[in-house]
């Protein structure tokens, strides 16, 4: 491992250089810039695979390596080393980010073909890859924070990428700002967590903090855990900071695939798993994590059932799937491996689904309303098959990859924690119900797009497959969606792989026998899928959305998340701001206004002295001389008088 560790900084270096060249090179790089972006990402992927294979060839206990790059900051009691931590967890992310990232880069070359700002797009993509790799490779919370903010910036830039010249430019810019601001709320959590850690442990490096987590008082651990959870909620669009993800679909579709499905939004899960020892020291925080995961899981699933916009439906699905991962991350060592496993498989199949959605939109002239699709399977066979693989994977049909990871999470959810069977029942049921709803909305999405007896296209549309640059990445991701779970899941390969990082999980029995859980899940999933098939493939899909039940209408409006934010946060903030403004204007400004008034009054008085007549000034001077002479004379007289008195 140590012979190739020197390559690790290049993982970040290649895309960073790519971004720098593209951003600083300006229009001169327009012609070949996109290929430079692909190359930078591809080079990082190659380095990632070299490191991965070397790591596989190393004994399990030697796989975690800290590669120090020297001291970064040294301020008083705080010394932070600039270093990278390579271990199975970060390597998993590196491979996911670079491999999927490179596929999406290639896809984007074709997808963004007609965009005048394609070079800038690739610069941002490279910047994102560099920041994401910094995030996962960091060996301290501080460096992780750098990557954390870096992906936030890249996300902001890419959501608002089309912020000029389009009819929706304004909405896009607003969506970007919304994502940025809501992420800030989460970032406060991370900063606070770092501050608490520094105050109690005296360091923010993983190597110091994580082993010391067991020694923290439960209150401290809970505080840190909840702060970290807040950060994770912001970045991963978990309840209550979930509102930005749906709007983030304003960005180009490859961005949605890479950032808002496969990688960045899972950073919160990474943070939770990485901080596992801290959470384990704080059972309350763990419970909150699980609750947040469960709530988001159902929230996203319910929203997903009602959305007609293909990207928003997928975004809701992403939120829901990350809810699964969060739930697993809150279950302790038993859940970590499955959280990351699901993250990995989800990265593949969700990226595939998003890219497939992009291909559909590309074919349909940027139409996103699924009620205007239908019957596309004949025209887009490759997209149909690859999205079909992703669909089966997310449903959790064996042997597709989603089955291996999601089933693991459901089983883990049924394991009682601390001997409290109610938790197992509640969260296990939520997970299973979520799987059923997932099956419903994904089947709905799939058949509304590809199935149906007659197309519901609007204009004179001629759907066709895109260039090979677009469908080859789809094929790769489709293969991954189909087989990745089988390869890594059978015999617990992936769980073993992560064991050096997350620790060995003692086997506990779920409250129900495992075959029963699997069977029940499958039955419910098939029921959900069959219901959706009947409603959207067998029956005709109306082109205008029916009014629907109360729940449907609520779900279409994201369960009133924006209204809730507006009422609970924005309006009070406006009220405070207005109060402060009024106070500032009427109290502070008025108060201080007296001073300039006095000054200007004095000015007006003394202005009259400035007659402009040079003779007046001369008179003033001469008078002054006279006065000084008189005073001097008086002083001398008085001095002499006093001297005489003595």
């Amino acid at each position: 491992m140590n012979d190739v560790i020197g390559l690790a900084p290049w993982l970040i270096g290649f895309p960073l250089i790519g971004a720098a060249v593209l951003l600083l090179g300006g229009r001169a790089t327009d012609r070949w810039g996109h290929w430079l972006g692909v190359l930078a990402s591809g080079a990082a992927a190659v380095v990632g695979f070299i490191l991965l294979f070397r790591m596989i060839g190393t004994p399990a206990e030697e796989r975690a390596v800290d590669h120090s790059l020297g001291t970064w900051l040294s301020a008083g009691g705080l010394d932070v080393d600039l270093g990278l931590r390579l271990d199975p967890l970060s390597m998993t992310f590196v491979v996911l980010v670079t491999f999927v990232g490179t596929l999406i880069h290639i896809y984007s070359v074709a997808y963004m073909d007609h965009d005048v700002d394609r070079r800038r797009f690739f610069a941002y993509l490279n910047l994102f890859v560099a920041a994401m790799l910094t995030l996962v490779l960091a060996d301290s919370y501080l460096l992780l924070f750098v990557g954390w903010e870096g992906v936030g910036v890249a996300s902001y830039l890419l959501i608002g990428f089309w912020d000029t010249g389009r009819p929706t430019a304004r909405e896009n810019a607003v969506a970007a700002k919304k994502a940025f601001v809501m992420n800030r709320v989460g970032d406060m959590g991370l900063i606070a967590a770092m501050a608490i850690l520094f105050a109690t442990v005296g360091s923010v490096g993983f190597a110091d903090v994580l082993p010391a987590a067991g020694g923290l008082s439960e209150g401290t651990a809970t505080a840190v855990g909840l702060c970290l959870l807040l950060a994770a909620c912001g970045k991963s669009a978990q309840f209550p900071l979930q509102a930005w993800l749906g709007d983030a679909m304003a960005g180009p579709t490859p961005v949605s695939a890479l950032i808002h499905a496969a990688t960045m939004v899972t950073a919160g899960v990474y943070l939770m798993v990485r901080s596992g020892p801290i959470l384990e020291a704080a059972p309350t925080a763990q419970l909150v994590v699980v609750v947040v995961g469960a709530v988001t899981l159902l929230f996203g699933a319910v929203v997903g059932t009602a959305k007609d916009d293909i990207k928003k439906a997928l975004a809701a699905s992403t939120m829901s799937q990350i809810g699964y991962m969060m739930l697993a991350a809150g279950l302790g060592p038993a859940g970590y491996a499955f959280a990351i496993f699901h993250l990995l498989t989800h990265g593949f199949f969700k990226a595939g689904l998003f890219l497939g959605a992009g291909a559909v939109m590309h074919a349909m002239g940027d139409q996103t309303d699924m009620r205007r699709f239908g019957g596309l399977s004949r025209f887009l066979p490759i997209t149909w098959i690859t999205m079909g693989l992703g669909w089966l994977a997310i449903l959790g049909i064996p042997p597709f990859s989603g089955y291996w990871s999601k089933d693991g999470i459901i089983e883990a959810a049924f394991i009682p924690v601390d001997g409290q069977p109610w938790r197992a029942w509640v969260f296990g049921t939520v997970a299973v119900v979520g799987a059923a709803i997932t099956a419903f909305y994904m089947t709905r999405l799939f058949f509304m797009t590809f199935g149906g007896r007659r197309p519901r296209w609007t204009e004179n549309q001629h759907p066709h497959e895109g260039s090979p640059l677009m469908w080859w990445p789809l094929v790769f991701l489709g293969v991954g969606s189909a087989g990745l779970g089988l390869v890594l899941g059978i015999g617990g390969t992936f769980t073993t792989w992560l064991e050096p990082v997350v620790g060995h999980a003692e086997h506990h029995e779920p409250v129900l026998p495992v075959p029963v859980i699997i069977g029940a899940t499958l039955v419910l999933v098939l029921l959900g899928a069959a219901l959706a098939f009947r409603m959207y493939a067998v029956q005709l899909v109306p082109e205008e959305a029916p009014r629907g039940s109360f729940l449907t209408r609520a779900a279409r409006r994201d369960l009133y998340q924006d209204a809730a934010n507006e009422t609970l946060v924005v309006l009070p903030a406006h009220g405070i701001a207005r109060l402060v403004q009024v106070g500032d204007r009427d109290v502070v400004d008025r108060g201080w206004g007296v001073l300039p008034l006095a000054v200007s009054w004095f000015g007006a008085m003394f202005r009259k002295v400035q007659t402009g007549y040079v003779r007046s000034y001369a008179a003033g001077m001469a008078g002054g001389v006279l006065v000084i002479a008189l005073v001097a004379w008086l002083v001398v007289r008085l001095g002499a008088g006093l001297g005489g008195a003595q």
Partner: protein
Amino acid sequence: MTPAGLEISGGETVLFWVVAPLMVLAALGLLFVRRAVHAAMCLVFVMISMAILYIAQEAPFLGVVQVVVYTGAVMMLFLFVLMLVGVDASDSLTETIRGQRWIGLLVGLGLALVLGGVVGRAAFPPGAGLAGGDPAGVANPQALARVLFGDYVLAMEAVGVLLVTAAVGALVLTHRRRLTPKQNQRTVAEARVKALTEGVSLTPLPSPGVYATSNAMDTPALGPDGEQIPQSVSRVLRIRGQERPAPHAGVALVDADAPTGAAAPRRGEEDV
């Protein structure tokens, strides 16, 4: 203190008491005469008297320099500028700034009192005199030169630079850059014709009136309509208010007994 001390001769005393009051009178002339030229002449008198006093006070070199530099150069410069600027309403002694006259007089009087008081109350050492105090016993210009080119040579050089700078500065200040094309006789004529509509006369201005009772520069000519033509009187006289009305202005003939020229009221001073 040299034992010899300073003896002020009776001749010097007489000289002082003759010259000093005249100087003060001439200086007061600066304050009270109306014409700037008269003021300049008053000042010349003060300065020459000052030169006499210098010579009386064992400073013959300074006395000569005073005559040469001040009366010879500086005052001539003043006169030149006076001619250049010409006659002006600012010669008037009317005060325009409210209170300035009283303030000025008060301050001037106060200055005189304070300075005089200080001089009167100060205890001066017995006078030393220069002849006794000069160890080398050389005459005044040489002794002055020794000090000037000895102790004060640097200041001397600096003053030289100052003079050159002042000369250049005056050149720069008074230099006028030509902004318009050069005028020749043709262009001047054309400009006058063009300006006809603005009331500029194409012909020479009418000459002053010539009358049986008076024939002078200060009486305006009468136009065909019997009205006076102000332009016919020199501008300087008009500004000074020294023009007299034409004897027959507006009327065929006034009372023959009245001495029109002398009785004509002078125009009041007016600002132009």
